[in-house]
């Protein structure tokens, strides 16, 4: 009898983020009648895609026991580099070259990967703590973003027909009523889920996070695995740099400031353990929706920005407390089962 009870509690705890999401949606649809409209939901989805894609990369990093604080700044830097390339081109000597939009997208994604690679190399080869390394690259990338334009905004990111670089705005447009960013989020989510669950690489990521020493003894190249997760995170951040710039129709050097925190929050809400070893993509997606619904829902209800911050902070702490409770309960149940079998 008692066992059935605790099993029910376990199931509820495991699905808690999803339950919270449903409750939030119900709550906000009563609190603000316009919340459950197509327009609002499209807006929420658009915002969720921004945190969500960052959180996908963050999930891999956190599963290996790391953290990537640089993603917000990478969003800003990539936006500025892309905006600059469209508006001013690349001047080498006396000549100025303009690139097509697909070329710019590929180039920016490469830059995101490169920053991730640098993070990963410093963390694994120079043995610097991930928190410190990515804190450093966070400042560096933000500085570079400002340097690119001396702090000014690139407003003409629409491109010029004559130069053949029109089209970036498509990433901020809607297709069949759904923002482009949401499509990117959906596609990247599927790729991420397949990578984590259906490939040897995914197992290796979980193994390194669960027990690095054992992973090495199993012949897994733990350093390479870790570096790869930072590259994935940089890649995701570069997408947000492009999408955000397209949505705003302008590249601003302060873009993405503090977004790494939303990404971490979504990841943790989604059940990824900060100590590494466990986490799911679907959890992260739900976590991103919770963050997005709280943010937009509170704004629609007229909750002040200051209160929003306080509530967001409380939700994150509560999530981790519940997570810990679940772990303790699980351990208790395992012990109980053992004693019964004895």
């Amino acid at each position, binding site marked *: 009898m008692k066992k059935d009870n605790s099993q029910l509690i376990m199931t509820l705890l495991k699905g808690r983020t999803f339950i919270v999401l449903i409750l939030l949606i119900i709550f906000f649809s009563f609190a603000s009648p316009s919340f459950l409209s197509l327009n609002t939901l499209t807006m929420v989805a658009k915002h969720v895609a921004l945190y969500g894609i960052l959180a996908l990369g963050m999930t891999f990093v956190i599963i290996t026991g790391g953290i990537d604080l640089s993603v917000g700044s990478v969003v800003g830097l990539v936006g500025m580099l892309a905006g600059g390339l469209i508006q001013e081109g690349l001047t080498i000597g006396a000549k100025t070259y303009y690139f097509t939009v697909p070329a710019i997208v590929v180039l920016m994604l490469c830059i995101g990967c490169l920053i991730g690679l640098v993070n990963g190399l410093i963390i694994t080869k120079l043995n610097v703590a991930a928190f410190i390394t990515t804190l450093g690259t966070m400042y560096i990338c933000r500085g570079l973003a400002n340097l690119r334009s001396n702090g000014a905004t690139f407003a003409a990111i629409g491109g010029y027909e004559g130069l053949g670089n029109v089209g970036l705005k498509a990433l901020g447009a809607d297709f069949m009523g759904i923002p482009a960013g949401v499509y990117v989020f959906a596609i990247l989510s599927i790729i991420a889920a397949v990578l984590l669950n259906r*490939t*040897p690489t995914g*197992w290796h990521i*979980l193994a390194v996070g*669960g*027990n690095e020493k054992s*992973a*090495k003894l*199993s*012949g897994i190249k733990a350093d390479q695995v870790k570096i790869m997760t930072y590259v994935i995170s940089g890649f995701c951040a570069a997408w947000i740099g492009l999408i955000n710039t397209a949505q705003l129709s302008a590249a601003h050097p302060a873009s993405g400031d503090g977004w790494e925190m939303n990404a971490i929050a979504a990841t943790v809400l989604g059940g990824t353990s900060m100590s590494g070893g466990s986490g799911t993509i679907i959890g992260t997606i739900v976590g991103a929706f919770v963050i997005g619904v709280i943010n937009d829902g509170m704004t629609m209800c007229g909750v002040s920005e200051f209160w929003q911050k306080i509530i967001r902070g409380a939700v994150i702490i509560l999530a981790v407390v519940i997570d810990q409770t679940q772990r303790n309960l699980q351990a208790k149940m395992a012990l109980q089962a053992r004693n019964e079998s004895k």
Partner: protein
Amino acid sequence: MFDDPNVVLHCEKIDKIYPGTKALDQVSFDLLKAKVNVLIGENGAGKSTLMKMIAGIEQPSAGKMYMDGQEVYFKDTNAARARGIGIIHQELSLFPNLTVYQNIFMNHEKTNMGFLDDKQHVDGAIKILKRLEHEIPPDTMVGDLRVGQQQMVEIARNLVDNDLRVLIMDEPTSSLSAAEVKVLFKIMRELLEQGISIVYISHRLEEIMEIGDHVTILRDGKYVADADIKDITLEWIVENMVGKNTQYHRFTRSIDLDHAEKILEVKNLSLPKTGGGWLLDNVNMYLKKGEVLGIYGLLGAGRSEVFECLMGMRPEHSGEVDYNGKPMKIGSIADQLNAGFAIVPEDRQRQGLVQSLDICKNASLASLEDFATLSLMNYAAEEKAVDAEIQELHIKVADKHLPILSLSGGNQQKVVIAKGLMTKPTVLLMDEPSRGIDIGAKTEVFEIIHKFSEKGLSIIVISSELKEIMAIADRIYVLSNGKCTAELSGSEITEDNLVRASYAGLGTGKNHAA
């Protein structure tokens, strides 16, 4: 060039040098084909180190290895695995956060067009586990398994590929029950029939006599002897393991211990192990005033755990403790220090010292409150007390405000002892006080132990060095597998008695008689 069809792998004069110690010294070793090759030696003899070389986990500092008449060099575990060498580690190297089948196939994944083929994994896992007579559902989380089951998963991992030629088993039975050991031996015999060679490291001498074919003995990183099991006896093994050299001066006691009062008595001390079994299993012991009590045992016998219980680091223990004739409730570490217990921990660097503090602060750390008036430090009093201790223990210190790491290992250890003594303890617990220090410093540490015991301090010393514990202890308890297997004093303290008792708890598995 080395070529012998009966030898699957030959090690030629292997050296392994770690900073400060030589773990292996010119060791040559033949791994016989389709035999159980047993490696024996005391803790730190170099058995595991030699196996790490063969499995590619570490690389020799000097020396060569040959397989099939060719020289081989294993730069990592993958290189050794490619040659068909698998290892079951002494400490479980599993992933508690993953399922049984994920653990079994980790880094040997079966894929279909680049994607994991979980059906193959699950079917394969079921097949292997059936062979091991442990039909654990393959999607169980490994963290939820009992330790014995985890050990089976560890073994299963090595049976995944069919190219296995050598299987190294480093104390595989240390966490198995008697029934599980039986299954393991059956598997081992099957493997031998398939032509697979086994290296078997174990402390359980009876098991070795049962399953082993050929035994090699190491001591202090050197080769001592090897022989076929059928030609030898247990006595021969013990004699070669322990050796006959180095004797320590035995101290004469002036205290009449027969009439001394019991200061500490521990009754039915038990400590559960996470994952099943017991770290301590109904241990009874007592300590008299002014006595030097030894606790001897193999690694993992439960020696340090006794201290951890007494110091309040293991609140999950059960049993009674009488202190000064009165029942004592064990509280926090600070409570135990105040009650008159002090500990010199086993791991000097991690538990004994704070590297960022200077010599003086390290010594006074546990007794700072004695030098404070209204919570403000009286540095003059502190320094005076530290100076007195430095003189008392003959610590060689140029300036007590130098970094602690500027001292030699022996003097660092004396600072840790000084820290313990400065709390003015009634009972001093010393865990491997002579580990990692040179022979001169060892003798000095023993003199300190003797001197303070003569002054009436009661001391418990843990040691895994036979000669040392025989030299300093008035009385010795032997722990084996969490049980107290012998209490020896006077003429009963012999190498043979100690070694036999240290294996005595192992034979029957770990079923706890409640």
